[in-house]
């Protein structure tokens, strides 16, 4: 068998190419995350990382576990579509540990939805707060969980 004699510059070029391609393949082998391409041309475990974030809002179901009496009152009245945490504030910490109190309720919260505004839909009940009542709290006359009943 006759040995093939290549010019030295060609040998160097071939070796260099093998070196570059080889180091790329080695780097790719080590650095490509295993989940890459699981769902598409991206890192599949990114989904899991985004899904592993902590909640801040617990959800009404969690409130219902302990405060079902209040929740049933709410469901039986015109505020039934409201979520607990809309008024009481985010309560995941409170749901995990009842000793952690949720945010203190702001009694001027009602006007956030019910202050008259020409952009609000007509079906929505609205008041001009300063003409409506000048006292401290809406709850002096209204029950937030049962707005259509007088206290």
């Amino acid at each position, binding site marked *: 068998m006759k040995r093939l004699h290549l010019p030295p510059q060609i040998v160097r070029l071939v070796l260099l190419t093998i070196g570059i391609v080889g180091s790329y393949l080695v780097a790719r082998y080590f650095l490509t995350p295993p989940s890459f391409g699981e769902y598409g041309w991206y*890192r599949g475990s990114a*989904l*899991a990382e985004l*899904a*592993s974030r902590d909640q801040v809002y617990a959800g009404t179901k969690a409130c219902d576990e302990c405060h079902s009496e209040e929740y049933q009152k709410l469901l039986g009245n015109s505020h039934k579509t409201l979520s607990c*945490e*809309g008024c009481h504030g985010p309560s995941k910490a409170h749901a995990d540990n009842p000793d952690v109190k949720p945010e203190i309720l702001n009694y001027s919260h009602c006007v956030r939805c019910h202050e008259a505004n*020409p952009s*609000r839909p007509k079906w929505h009940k609205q008041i001009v707060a300063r003409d409506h009542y000048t006292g401290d709290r809406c709850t002096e006359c209204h029950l937030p969980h049962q707005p259509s009943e007088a206290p």
Partner: protein
Amino acid sequence: MKEPVSRRSVLRKISAALAGLATLPVAKTAQAAVQKILVSASLPRGYDPKKHKWVMAIDANRCIGCGLCAEACKRENHVPEGPFFRTWIERYIIAKPKEGSGEARGETFVDSPNGGMHGFPEPPVPKEDIQHSFFVPKLCNLCERSPCTQVCPVGATFDAPDGAVLIDPKYCIGCGFCIQACPYGCRFLSPVTKTAEKCTLCYHRITRGLRPACVEVCPTQARIFGDLMNPLPEDPIQRFYQDNRVQTLKPHLGTGPRVFYAGIDKEVR
């Protein structure tokens, strides 16, 4: 010159090949060690992204502009302070046409002070000059053919199989191409992480069987969230379609949004 094949050279070659084979498991272990750093979390048990298709419907007729959704989004997702929003509310005010102008509608005013989080100030037009006014909640439009993912140079943003358009924060280099590409202005560059951020549909909530925070707190059910693959009994999305004439934003761009709107005017973009 030809070397004779000796016993020694053959043995040397065989042992080299064996050593080469032995490095494979070593390489595998090393690879696993490297990748352990890159992989940390797993999806909640029982959640398969291929078995869901999330959609959002917005009934603007029901939006009262209270801003609870924008505020809940900010708190749930730790969105940085300042003009950065994953969801926000826009107020549209369409004035009456000027007398004798021969037009049907007047000028349109759009504003969203602080994303509508803390309500809206007095309208810029006197009340009696307003022809029509309404609120429109905005968020990522969950495009079927999302322009933002097409322009990402590092493949950091992608369309998840369940319909959410997400960003891999570890891959994002913060170049901002996607922010320019989004025709709905739904992305921003976070001053904290220096990466692009956007609505994830509260991915950490929907994968645990909860609703996104904005849908959770909406007091009038203006936001409706659903799964096209697993419709609920009396599916709210189907009812939304039955009860309304539904449209999407900027349909002429061909992005195929999966956020559907009812009760908005052509002025809304």
